[in-house]
């Protein structure tokens, strides 16, 4: 990595902070983005040549503020208006707490519940994460023009509908935080579901989601949801390279080479689960509990030695928070390992409204397969295949179906 790369990374890290403060002082996301972008370009031009300034954030912010003033003056001249007093040209660097609060405001504005989820994702990637519009479009597999339009509309709604630039009050925080976490988790899943080998571009989404979760954990180190989210993402991501074989086919958790799991990510994830559990003892949190399930897997030396009792107990806790058919299905899969396929099949069959969910049929097919009920199993595989999932997953089901006798 050359000095240019180090500068690029530093600039990217600071960009969201500078942007966050500029949005507050100028009151306009668009203006702030233009000005921040200008400062970023200048930094990328001059820092590799002249060296990184002592306070890179302050340098970027002052440069961006000057640019913002130029833009406002130009706009004022064009409209024939008097230039407003430029009260925000204070060259003194913002105190750290102010920058932290600005970034929090940006988080909650980008993930405001009055914005469509896809708009939240677009804003989180572009504004908070600093992916380019083209990168965000590639990651989400939409045309760049579509992504650009989503961003424009989202910013218009923020400005015109008056979405406030504010951290929610304490009583609103749990609900709003759940919304922020859901957006970051969605970004992660977009990348994670794509696998690795097949589509490397989308891996940037998992990395971006982890970066966003880290940012949230840095901003709100006492919020269990945030710690649980980061833990969950790290623990899932720790298995990334072991999830597919060398030709891109998925490898089930049971068959993964655990020596290829990322031990460092697991260590950090498990520690975070502990910290998050201590902060949510009174009120269990869905992200923390899912991370606890992931930790049970991450800590098991082999699939056979997984503590299924613990996994099932965590699923029981999760059901008390969110009793959904999918959680019941996942719990049933763990019961299959502890109590055998017959007990699990009874649970799976008792879940009523998953007939349109391919994994429900896939799980039934697998359990029937293990019970030696080949005909019923084949029918269930067919149903799962007909409903569709991504190609490597279909490939796995086809392979299992082909192993049925007869």
């Amino acid at each position, binding site marked *: 990595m050359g000095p240019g790369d180090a500068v690029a990374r530093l600039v990217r890290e600071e960009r969201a902070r500078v942007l966050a403060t500029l949005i507050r002082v100028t009151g306009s996301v668009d203006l702030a983005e233009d000005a921040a972008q200008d400062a970023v370009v200048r930094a990328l031009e001059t820092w590799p040549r002249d060296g990184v300034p002592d306070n890179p954030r302050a340098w970027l912010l002052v440069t961006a503020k000057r640019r913002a003033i130029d833009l406002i003056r130009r706009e004022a001249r064009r409209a024939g208006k008097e230039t407003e007093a430029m009260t925000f040209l204070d060259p003194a660097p913002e105190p750290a707490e102010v920058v932290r609060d600005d970034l929090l405001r940006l988080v909650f504005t980008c993930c*405001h519940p009055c914005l469509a989820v896809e708009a939240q994702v677009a804003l989180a990637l572009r504004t908070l994460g600093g992916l380019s519009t083209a990168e965000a479009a590639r990651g989400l597999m939409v045309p760049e023009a579509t992504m650009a339009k989503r961003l424009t509309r989202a910013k218009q709604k923020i400005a015109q509908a008056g979405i*406030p630039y*504010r951290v929610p009050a304490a009583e609103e925080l749990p609900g709003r935080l759940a919304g922020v976490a859901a957006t970051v988790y969605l970004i992660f899943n977009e990348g994670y579901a794509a696998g690795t080998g097949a589509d490397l571009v989308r891996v940037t989404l998992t990395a971006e989601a982890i970066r966003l979760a880290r940012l949230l954990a840095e901003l709100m180190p006492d919020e269990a949801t945030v710690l649980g989210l980061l833990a969950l993402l790290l623990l899932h991501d720790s298995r990334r390279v072991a999830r597919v074989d060398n030709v891109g086919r998925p490898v089930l958790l049971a068959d993964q080479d655990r020596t290829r799991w990322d031990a460092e990510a697991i260590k950090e994830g498990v520690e975070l689960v502990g910290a998050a559990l201590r902060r949510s003892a009174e009120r269990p949190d869905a992200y923390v509990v899912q991370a606890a399930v992931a930790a049970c897997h991450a800590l098991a030396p082999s699939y056979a030695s997984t503590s299924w009792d613990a996994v099932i107990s965590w699923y029981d806790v999760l059901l008390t928070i969110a009793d959904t058919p999918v959680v019941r299905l996942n719990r049933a899969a763990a019961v299959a390992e502890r109590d055998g396929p017959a007990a699990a099949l009874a649970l799976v069959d008792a879940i009523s409204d998953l007939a349109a969910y391919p994994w429900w049929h896939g799980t039934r097919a697998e359990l029937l397969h293990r019970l030696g009920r080949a005909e019923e199993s084949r029918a269930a595989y067919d149903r799962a295949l007909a409903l569709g999932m991504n190609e490597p997953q279909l490939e796995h089901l086809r392979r299992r179906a082909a192993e049925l006798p007869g």
Partner: protein
Amino acid sequence: MPTYMALTYTPDIDWTQPPPEHAGTMKEYAEFAEGAAAVIKGGRALYPTATATTIRVPAGKGGDVITSDGPYAETKEALTGFYLLECADLDEAVAVAAKIPAAWDGAVEIRPVITF
């Protein structure tokens, strides 16, 4: 301070003769109007969609006027009234709109009003 238009979409009721099951609704609206008096800058209830006329001039400005009996869009829930709310921001407007009885009797759409 921004102004928001709150459009109430509810079952198509004749507010001048509310059916018995909606007897309490009028009282709820009165309570809302009292509680939110500080931000309500206007508002009216509308006669049912049976009274609506939709007007078009398809040939362009000055052309023949085509009227049709009924609302612009036939929907299960109809536009039955509106308020103008002056609120600090969208969060406050959402909080006020959530107290309009239409929010549990149907839906409330809030739209920022343009100041030219």
